[in-house]
């Protein structure tokens, strides 16, 4: 087992990445649990989590810290948020998810993890949760929608601290199935730049995810 320098709270166990389980003894999505030196670790499956895939593919900017405040859009049933929750043990992860079905699992998960705050709401209408949120260090967006970049930027403008980091997982097929992913990624990057953001890094998620790109960005000013 090895602590990964660049990735706070992420470990290398038998060539798998892993996080220390905040809720000992419980699996979240069927991942493997491994005990090392009296501590329990959860294997982070890059095929199930795009953030995991980005780490495997050599992500440079990994902004998550023990006390990070994170707004997570499209939290789904909590696979990736659970690993972030393992990392940001003293932070808060607001998890926005619109599907009641996903949210049911997410609420269950949140009960056991005090740093996870579930929100059944619509990420395309960020003002909806204006009265419940704080400004965050990291805005993470994984919403399979045609207007995913637009809602990402709107949320950043409302909730991201000036020095904060935004991470978006772009799924080209949700934007336009008829266009080539490359062209779509180029266009979405342009949108972010025009919208006042600086793209720090782009990570292709192959072979874990097809036609997906992770983009890391911050305010350009």
């Amino acid at each position, binding site marked *: 087992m090895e602590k990964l320098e660049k990735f706070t709270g992420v470990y290398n166990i038998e060539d798998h990445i892993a996080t220390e389980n905040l809720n000992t003894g419980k699996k979240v999505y069927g991942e493997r649990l491994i005990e090392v030196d009296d501590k329990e670790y959860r294997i982070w499956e890059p095929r199930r989590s795009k953030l995991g895939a980005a780490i495997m593919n050599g992500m440079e900017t990994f902004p998550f810290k023990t006390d990070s405040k994170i707004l997570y859009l499209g939290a789904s049933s909590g696979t990736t948020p659970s690993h972030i929750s393992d990392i940001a043990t003293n932070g808060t992860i607001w998890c926005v998810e619109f599907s009641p079905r996903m949210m049911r699992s997410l*609420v269950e998960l*949140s009960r056991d993890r005090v740093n996870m705050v579930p929100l059944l709401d619509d990420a395309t209408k960020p*003002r*909806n949760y204006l*009265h*419940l949120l*704080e400004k965050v260090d990291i805005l993470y967006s994984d919403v399979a929608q045609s207007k995913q970049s637009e809602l990402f930027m709107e949320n950043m403008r409302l909730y991201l601290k000036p020095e904060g980091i935004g991470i978006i997982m772009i799924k080209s097929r949700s934007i336009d199935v008829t266009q080539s992913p490359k062209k779509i990624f180029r266009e979405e990057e342009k949108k972010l730049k025009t919208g006042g953001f600086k793209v720090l890094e782009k990570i292709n998620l192959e072979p874990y995810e097809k036609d997906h790109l992770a983009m890391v960005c911050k305010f350009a000013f």
Partner: protein
Amino acid sequence: MKCYLTCSFAGFISLDENCTLLDYELFPRDKLKERFAKITAGIVTREEELILKRLVKKCDTIVIETNTPHSRYKNLKESIKFKYETPNMAGEFLRSNMEDLLKKTDFLKSDDDLTKIIHDLSIEITNDRLRKASESEDMFLIQAINSIDELDETTGKMVERLREWYSIHFPELDKIKNHERFVEIVADLGDRDSIIDSGVLDPDKDSVRTDKSIGAPISEIDLLILKEFASSIKSLQVTKRSITEYIDERMGEIAPNLKDLTGASLGAKLIAHVGSLERLSKMASGTVQVLGAEKALFRHLKTGERPPKHGLIFQHPEVRGAKWWIRGKVARTLALKISLAVRTDVYSGEYDPSIRESFEKRIEEIKKSNPFPKKST
């Protein structure tokens, strides 16, 4: 003086232009969830009225950050002083310094854990919303399954009309008994000669006489309108298929175990019949067994006629296909398993294939141990 008003789950906070705390009006600690529901619904709460009443005395302009329709502030005193700006300076400051500010307002005592408060509140709020959402999920499903009945009735009537209408020209085609096929042939091909030339008619299977029709010739304009009528029936049939697929998908999400046991359509009909999945989960299996046979049940209670053995669940192939002497048993077994499946759907939501499997096993046993009707005694 100009001041800024913002709102959080804790209550209303007003800052001046230097972001100094000017005033606040907190929600009662035991009413956080209720108050949050109100501000989400766009209702001006008592607390907001109170703080605004105080602020208009001190300030010339009050810049309010809010999701509430502005019209709802119109009736408040001196509302002419209100400006609206969302987000505003106070909100931005609050969201950047939440813990500090809430401490200053005495909302947070020294030993309070803000993260825990937000965490618990959010779970409560989310659970409320989930409850509402699952009601509306049920309602969408119920509307969909009901629309299928209407589409069937509608399409049926229109196909009858189309058959009568089209028979003026090519009465022999009426031999095609399958409605969908009949409609499609007329919509796509149109007149008799085109149909015959296209080769869609199978001389063996269709038994449509094509050599000499006793029908009348048809003009272009008569044919066009007939084809349009047929096409609109076809589009209804397509819509019906889409809705059927939708029900299938939704049932898989809302009630995977019920769907597995009864199929999407019958499951959705049961939910529609009682109004919600939850209500269905609270019913005794004896009631589930006769859902949809209320009239017969009523007759039984009133006149002592035989009680009904099954209602809607007669549509299940195992019930419908059962020999008469075991049909009651099969229906009872199915109703029991339906209750189990629905409860699993409501309380755990997890798909459990063993429910259907145990039903099938039980049916096999019933069949095996009752190969012949019992002699009546």
